[in-house]
């Protein structure tokens, strides 16, 4: 018959400090709840603001242009970026990468086709692919291809939808926009033209322009362009922090203009993540505090049961067996406390998703797996630290 802890249990004096024990359970529960909620909210923010933000992988993507003043108006040399400008900017430590936005140097028109019957002079630009936030695999063009993929700024669609009713044009949704067949009309300097089929493959929150594949614009500029040299009027910059004072000073000094709007979304997300990281750290501190409180309670219990434990060791009970059994007493409590915290986190997440986010599809109804993993880790951590401490205390007791 296995050695039973049943006759030993009454020897542990746990009774009269029930309130301190309950307090430490409560503290532990609150701490775990804070920690788990923070993790879930952190994940929620990632999922809500994740894919479509200008800030991607911890970087800010911003466009800069030269400030056009009354003095520089009409002087292309002063308003466009030269190769030297780009080189200088790339060499700065606060700049991770630079890509020029190349524009068309020929007349370009866009037509909505039969569904949206309008024709307008427009511009197109191209940019290195890795600067594009919503890059679909279909975004490439090779010579001879009639069909040209386009990425447009989601702002443009919004602006179009504002003025469309006034011109008797239909308003269009994002989904429809990506199905529109557009006509791209490219003019030679002599007025002759060629027509290409365009279709919108994605909308971008980051890039405030109409983007075509680099290969297409390079080819078209050569073929239709009036001037040989092509320089960029805008640059896209990838930086760790668009609010870096050195960076802003440099821009000011060079008289470059920054598109601040585009970084705001990223800043908001950063601030939110900061808040929830802070909350998570606070939760972790509360967990540590309550584990400490619980360890004081354990020490008190062992001190109060000192005579009994000492006698058990004298009788030949193994200190290791006793530590294991004593610390195992608290596993169900830990499991219950953590499970309650997980259940409450699930409830709060559901409430957030349902009432605050109106069941947005980016979020799941269920907790992220990392929340469960942290909960399991916490149980293991508490049981392990308890076992270590009880064992240490019992070994210290062993001398009569």
């Amino acid at each position, binding site marked *: 018959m296995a050695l*039973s802890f049943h006759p030993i249990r009454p*020897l542990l004096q746990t009774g009269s400090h029930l309130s301190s024990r309950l307090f430490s359970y409560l503290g532990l529960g609150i701490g775990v709840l804070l920690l788990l909620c923070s993790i879930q909210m952190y994940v929620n923010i990632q999922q809500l603001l994740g894919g479509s933000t200008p800030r991607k992988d911890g970087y800010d993507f911003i466009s800069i242009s030269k400030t056009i003043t009354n003095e520089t108006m009409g002087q292309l040399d002063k308003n466009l970026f030269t190769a030297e400008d780009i080189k200088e900017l790339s060499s700065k430590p606060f700049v991770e990468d630079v890509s020029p936005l190349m524009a068309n140097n020929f007349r370009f028109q866009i037509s909505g086709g039969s569904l949206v019957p309008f024709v307008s002079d427009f511009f197109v630009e191209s940019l290195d692919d890795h600067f594009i936030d919503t890059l679909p695999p279909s975004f490439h063009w090779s010579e001879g291809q009639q069909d040209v993929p386009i990425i447009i700024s989601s702002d443009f669609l919004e602006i179009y939808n504002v003025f469309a009713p006034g011109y008797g044009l239909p308003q269009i949704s994002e989904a429809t926009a990506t199905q529109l067949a557009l006509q791209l009309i490219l003019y030679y300097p002599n007025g002759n033209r060629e027509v290409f089929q365009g279709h919108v493959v994605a909308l971008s929150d980051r890039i405030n322009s109409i983007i075509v594949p680099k290969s297409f614009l390079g080819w078209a500029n050569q073929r239709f362009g009036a001037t040989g040299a092509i320089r960029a009027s805008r640059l896209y910059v990838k930086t760790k922090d668009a609010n870096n004072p050195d960076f802003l000073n440099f821009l000011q000094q060079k008289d470059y203009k920054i598109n601040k709007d585009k970084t705001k979304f990223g800043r908001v997300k950063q601030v939110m993540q900061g808040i929830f990281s802070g909350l998570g750290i606070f939760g972790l501190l509360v967990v540590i505090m309550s584990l400490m409180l619980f360890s004081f309670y354990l020490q008190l219990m062992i001190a109060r049961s000192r005579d009994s434990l000492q006698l058990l060791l004298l009788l*030949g009970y193994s200190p290791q067996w006793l530590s294991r059994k004593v610390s195992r007493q608290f596993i169900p409590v830990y499991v219950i406390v953590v499970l309650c915290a997980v259940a409450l986190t699930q409830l709060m997440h559901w409430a957030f998703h349902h009432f605050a986010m109106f069941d947005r599809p980016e979020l799941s109804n269920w907790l992220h797996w990392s929340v469960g993993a942290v909960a399991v880790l916490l149980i293991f951590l508490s049981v392990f630290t308890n076992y270590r401490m009880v064992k240490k205390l019992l070994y210290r007791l062993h001398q009569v």
Partner: protein
Amino acid sequence: MMTITLQQVLPTYFEESRKQRSEIWGKDLLFNKGEYIKIVAPSGSGKSSLMHFLYGLRHEYNGTIRYNDSVTSRLTREGFAGYRKDHISIVLQDLRLFPEQTVQENLEIKRQLNPFHPPEKIVEFAERLGIGNKLASRCRICSYGEQQRVAIIRALLQPFDFLLLDEPFSHLDDNNSQKAMQLMLEEAEARGAAIIFADLERIDYFPFTRLFHL
């Protein structure tokens, strides 16, 4: 076969001259399984110290005590637990019972650690020593004599090669002492075990094979 060896053992708080007068302190001794050792020791001669040293409760001595080949002062706590569970049992002078537990519970806590006897033996032994009606009483309210008999029965519920007795009859009358001695002798014989019996004076009903003056 288990042995206990003493080599030049002397409590650190005793003066060297004790070695001359004592037949145990400062001597080399070997105790074998099956022997009945009687140690006669007047008050203050270190009787309880010797028993505590032999059981590994204290280590304030110079010299060496060995269980078989293991030096006890180097045994781990788990190592001691193993010996106490399987090989060495003790009746301490200060009894050491759980005061808030009943007699039955006190005995069961020891018995279940390494059962040599079935639970029914607890009742049988208690009846034999005249405390059968005390099994359900808390030890705290038992008399010293009753508690002493509980401590004796407790020592007999496990397997052992050595039974250490430190004034086990100090609170018992002659009649009860003889009954208890008889029971201990039977149990030791059943295990082929040795008894090391330390008391203030010689007791006629302990058939010792070796006698030492401490």
